[in-house]
């Protein structure tokens, strides 16, 4: 039972991360479309934010693995 609950918990965390990173991608695309010259800066900022949010999602995965 703990195993299934842990898997469900990890899945919920992934929903949050997917939504968050999707929104980052969306606003990054819009920003690049508005101002193509700033594309590299926006891309760098996007990758950094995605890595940080993914870190939070992986917290949840680690907790799920421990359980």
């Amino acid at each position: 039972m703990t195993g299934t609950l842990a898997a469900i918990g990890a899945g919920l965390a992934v929903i949050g991360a997917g939504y968050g990173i999707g929104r980052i991608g969306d606003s990054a695309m819009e920003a690049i479309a508005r101002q193509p010259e700033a594309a590299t800066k926006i891309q760098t900022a996007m990758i950094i934010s995605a890595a940080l949010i993914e870190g939070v999602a992986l917290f949840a995965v680690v907790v799920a693995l421990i359980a």
Partner: protein
Amino acid sequence: MKTKNIVRFFFFFILAGLTISSFGNEVGKNGEDEGKFNASEYILDHISDSHEWHILTKKNGESVAIYLPVILYSKEKGLDFFFSKKLAHGHIYKGYRLEEEGALKGKIVSINEEGEIDEENIPFDFSMTKTVLGMLFSAIIGLILFLTLARSYKKAGISHPKGIRSFLEPIIFFIRDDIAIPNLGSHKYEKFMPYLLTVFFFILINNLMGLVPFPPPFGANVTGNIAVTFTLAACTFLITQFNGTKTYWRHIYAAPGVPLWLLPIMIPVEVIGMLAKPFALMVRLFANIAAGHIIVLSLVSLIFIFKSLAVAPVSIIFVIFMDCLELLVAFLQAYVFTLLSALFIGLATTEHH
């Protein structure tokens, strides 16, 4: 051989290793018929640390492995040094045994004369395990890279970059200009540059080495081990603590403008915040790298769960794709760790504005 060719071989080796990694795990399992394939045990065996470097398992069940030295210190028996071959398959040597199942699995315990485990005095284990050997090897790679770099500067002076410098110099400048100076200020960044550079290249080299499974010094899962990332995060934490200015400490313990009755709540919150940042560093790096390894191993073990060769092409293509993603994650996690370390050090050392 010219350094340009060395760099090319390095990259080719990484790419080849990524492709071969999908085949490498199959070599050991041919011909074994032990009933059901236990995927989680297989994965955990590959991720976790061990006292031997397992290369492959032959058809008759014997395993070919490099047995690593075991260094133990227990209060009664003193310092012991021997190779872990003596402890293989649960033998008892000099009163020590490597537990293979149960609560103390994977640890070396001391056995008293009746053959029972002496629960009180578990010996201190300073052994050179697989992770330690991997770290030492990556340290040697780092030393070779940077000592060559330093020597090429001494010979040629500050001129336009050729050879190994053309590879490392942009990275070092990137760390200085985009990570160190914006976060630490242009006056004080020099003091912390050695630490930031060391952390970045240590994490990067270890991440990359974890992706290449063959030959033996390469397959160790160093940064996917929470003890290693704990130590790295602890280093950042200690540097922020020892370099914190008075304004930094004031903000934690007696933030300006906070009424006195709120302080008993604010101080624990601030202390937890202070500890949570290195904790996040530790878990982020560990989870990203370990999760990557687990995904690749799971995709390969799909072949063995379904026991059919038709799954192999699909599985291998996925594995190659995931390995490329892992390459990106390797660089990214090294960068994020260094960036956040610089940010925390910068926050701790800012002057009162």
